[in-house]
């Protein structure tokens, strides 16, 4: 009957390990949150994306509606091309929606905020967002501030 005891203990060990894996997946990671079960892709061109990273969140009024899927540099417009993967349940953004790059907190991560427009037509897979606002670059702000300071004299 020793074998039976061993079998039970091994079974418990395996169950415990698998349970731990499950816990890691569900409680410690973002698997329980939005899953990319269905997304559609929208492109936006920015003059400067600052420190935006792939997988950065895309939000509308603070609610996460998607992620940054791809970042590239467009050879004809000389601007940054950012592809956004938005959840298919959020398929109601008007075509004149604008995208801005903001920073969460003073030094936090950068994310894209969508501001819905007023058109009837909605963004589809492959659409291009017309109105964009670049990231604020701290150095540029300081530079502008310094120029203003010195020009007043």
């Amino acid at each position: 009957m020793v074998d039976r005891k061993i079998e039970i203990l091994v079974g418990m060990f395996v169950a415990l390990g698998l349970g731990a894996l499950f816990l890691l997946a569900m409680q410690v990671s973002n698997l329980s949150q939005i899953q990319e079960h269905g997304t559609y892709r929208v492109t936006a061109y920015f003059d400067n994306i600052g420190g935006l990273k792939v997988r950065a969140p895309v939000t509308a009024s603070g609610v996460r509606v998607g992620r940054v899927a791809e970042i590239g540099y467009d050879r004809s417009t000389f601007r940054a091309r950012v592809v956004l993967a938005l959840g298919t349940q959020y398929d109601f953004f008007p075509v004149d929606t604008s995208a801005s790059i903001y920073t969460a907190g003073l030094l936090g991560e950068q994310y894209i905020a969508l501001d819905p427009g007023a058109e009837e037509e909605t963004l589809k897979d492959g659409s291009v967002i017309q109105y964009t606002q670049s990231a604020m670059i701290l150095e540029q702000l300081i530079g502008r501030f310094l120029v203003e300071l010195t020009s007043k004299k």
Partner: protein
Amino acid sequence: MIGLLQALGHWSLARVARLGRGHLFLVRTLASLPRLLPRPGLVVRELFSVGVLSLLIIVVSGGFVGFVLGLQGYVTLVRFGAEESLGVVVALSLVRELGPVVTALLFAGRAGSALAAEIGLMKSTEQLAGLEMMAVDPIERVVAPRFLAGFISMPLLAALFSVVGVWGGFFVGSGLLGVDAGAFWSQIQAQVDFRDDVLNGVIKSVVFGFVASWIAVFEGYDAVPTSEGVGRATTRTVVNTALAVLGLDFILTALMFGNF
């Protein structure tokens, strides 16, 4: 001078031969794995001695590593007023690095050394030769079940280590130091990615499990059949596993999180 060169050549040839032997041994072990299928009892018994008996040390160390991470992270983060991120620090360092690596090191010390000593002693008491005499392949009967048990146990132990560690960090951070419990968990869930972090950590632990089990059974099987040889095989198991795991960890980390 010639003698020195000869010694050097002999030494390096011996090393290369050992390396080749190790890989041939691995191929033979892997090839005999399918023949284990009709006899799962062999593996279950080894799972007990390799996995179940390692549980205690893994859980206890995981808890203490979590405590320390919680304390250290808190002391650093509170300076920036970012103690809410404590959960992320604890979870990411455990899931990505410490879980797989520390588990593999503990595994080498607890289970790997025992495997090597067991097989080495079987060899020195000529039990392996006895099996061969009875037309039983010792690799199939003795080595393969132990290898497979180690390979299965490692990821499970590493996952347990990480979970216990995160809870340990939660206990210290939230229970003793007053980090908000809701912020702790929600930050973790927002920042830890399943594919990039958890899955890569699991892949690491699978690779480490493979390497640690392989080194342990090979060192035992290749031991000089004397009591001194068995002792040396045990030492070499722990040392080589530690080196292999840490080196592989660097390569795997560069591949997974390097972004190039």
